[in-house]
């Protein structure tokens, strides 16, 4: 089922959580709402669920205005960051809850409930835990039960609020893949909120980047990563080196140096971003490029990270460069050395008045 939100406005006191926001979520997709904390992503999810009332604007479910429909009737499955399992009920009773709360006429028989719950528990691969209580489960297991519980009422939409936020890194990665597989099986329209760009890029069909209650960019994971629309998106989706300068004939003038690389032409003052693995270190101190001094060389597994301090015009700025540990250049680098930096790939934005980059 498709979801549309139109001109949603929501403020908490003087804080504007959602600023005239409109979005379309096509049916059957798994969409990630990605952004820093306080960007309004959770509020948007809660507005769609009906747990929060927007100040103005409409929520359309399957083309029908659901703005005045109670959560109960919206048929949305909601999964909370902290699971919100009913502690006094067994896993089985938790999953059966939605079915047992149905009005007498629509309520399935106990036998039917039993069959359905076991089917769902099998789906989340936790059938053997049916008689346990939530307190006896691990975090990852609890979240899977919470998901089974939400699916039990056959929701038209699945909304997940930072579903893996409370889990440790390893379990998180496992559950991510598992969620993706589950979505491929069920094809239920799903929206999940996260502040973890890796999670969003790995799991979602489509990523919505949000900042300050607005949408910054919508696109496939590859789109938003490779064609970031705004400096904010560039900065949020990965490590970035930031250079401020102005557009000139030969490239981007940063102080006395010029960045060449694969720069798109812009006019006037610009901000240029370079990913750490797309920045070259040139040992000749008189070559062209940004002057910098190496402050640290760190090798972590297959990658070597070089931390540098800007010199002359860019004094006080920090830069990161990533090299393969096998790169012969690594052996020639030492802290204190002055080098030049030259990007292979630059992404240039006209200088915005908002300094949104990380």
């Amino acid at each position, binding site marked *: 089922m498709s979801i549309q939100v139109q001109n949603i406005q929501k403020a908490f006191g003087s804080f504007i959580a959602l600023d005239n926001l409109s979005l379309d979520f096509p049916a059957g997709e798994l969409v990630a709402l990605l952004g820093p904390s306080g960007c309004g992503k959770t509020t948007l999810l809660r507005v769609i*669920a009906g*747990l929060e009332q927007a100040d103005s604007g409409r929520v359309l479910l399957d083309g029908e205005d659901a703005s005045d429909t*109670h*959560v*109960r009737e919206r048929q*949305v*499955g*909601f999964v*909370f960051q*902290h699971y*919100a*399992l*009913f*502690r*006094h*009920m*067994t896993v089985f009773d938790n999953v059966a*809850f*939605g079915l047992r*709360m*149905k009005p007498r006429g629509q309520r399935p028989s106990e036998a039917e409930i039993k069959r359905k719950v076991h089917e769902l528990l099998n789906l989340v691969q936790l059938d053997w835990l049916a008689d*346990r*209580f*939530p*307190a*006896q489960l691990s975090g990852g297991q609890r979240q899977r039960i*919470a998901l089974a*519980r*939400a699916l*039990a*009422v056959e929701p038209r939409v699945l909304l997940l609020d930072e579903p893996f936020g409370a889990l440790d890194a390893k379990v998180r990665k496992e559950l991510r893949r598992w969620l993706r597989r589950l979505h491929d099986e069920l094809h239920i329209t799903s929206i999940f909120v996260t502040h973890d760009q890796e999670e969003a890029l790995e799991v979602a069909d489509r990523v919505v980047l949000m900042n300050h209650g607005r949408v910054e960019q919508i696109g496939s994971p590859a789109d938003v990563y490779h064609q970031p629309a705004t400096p904010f998106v560039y900065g949020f989706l990965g490590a970035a080196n930031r250079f401020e300068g102005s557009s000139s004939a030969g490239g981007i003038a940063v102080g006395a140096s010029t960045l060449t690389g694969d720069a798109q032409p812009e006019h006037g003052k610009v901000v240029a971003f370079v990913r750490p693995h797309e920045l070259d270190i040139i040992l000749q101190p008189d070559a062209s490029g940004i002057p910098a001094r190496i402050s640290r060389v760190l090798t972590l597994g297959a990658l070597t990270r070089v931390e540098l301090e800007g010199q002359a015009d860019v004094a006080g700025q920090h830069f990161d460069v990533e090299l393969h540990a096998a790169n012969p250049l690594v052996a020639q680098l030492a802290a204190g050395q002055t080098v030049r930096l030259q990007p292979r790939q630059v992404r240039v934005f006209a200088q915005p008045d908002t300094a949104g980059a990380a």
Partner: protein
Amino acid sequence: MSRAATLPRVLPGFGLSLGYTLSYLSLIVLIPLSAVFIRASELPLDAFWHAVTAPRVLASYRLSFGMALLAAAINTVFGLLLAWALVRYRFPGKKLVDALVDLPFALPTAVAGIALTALYAGNGWLGQYLEPLGIKVAFGPLGVLVALVFIGLPFVVRTVQPVLEDMETELEEAATSLGAHRWQTFRHVILPVLQPALMTGFALAFARGVGEYGSVIFIAGNIPMVSEITPLMIISKLEQYDYAGATAIASVMLVASFLLLLAINGLQAWQARRHGRSA
């Protein structure tokens, strides 16, 4: 227990603290209580039986235990409402209301008794309107109930409040998103979580009600067979220097209260087991 004693601890002193606990409990609680039974056992059995089953005494049991149970039940319902309002909503004067809840704790019970009597007596503020309707509160069994409701209120509020504060509103949101109606959410999600605290509050309010003397004695009117509470029967025996008779009644009260509290505790433990140590 031997494991607890031998395991290395950050703070030592298991032996000392256990010894202290036991001797202190004996000194403060067990010895006085056993004195009640020892004193009561001085009576021959038929005299004991006569003392504890006199019609006036039986009537006082009914009143004391009946009204204490009823008052605790009323307090459980309204104490829950009060705690709910204090935890869930923000309103002007909330701090004041919160502090007022403790007033029945702090107020000398005799003051409470006089205040309630003045209020509910036939010429009192409330009494003058209630009496023409045929509702006689002061100087009757109903007065006992009013006094016990008054003094028992804080017990329920104060035991339920922290549990309610700990309960995430997400649980209710989860329940509604799964299609539960308000009543279903309350009945199946909120109440089970609050139940242990409610039962503790009920037990405390009840125990306090059974033993209450100061606030009740004034408003009850002390009409034989109608509004005499058991503690009064003990006092009146004492005043007639019938110490053995007084302790006989006291021992009955003690055993009855103990059994009731034991039953409530047992019920709680049974439920905790049923719900897998979740409380």
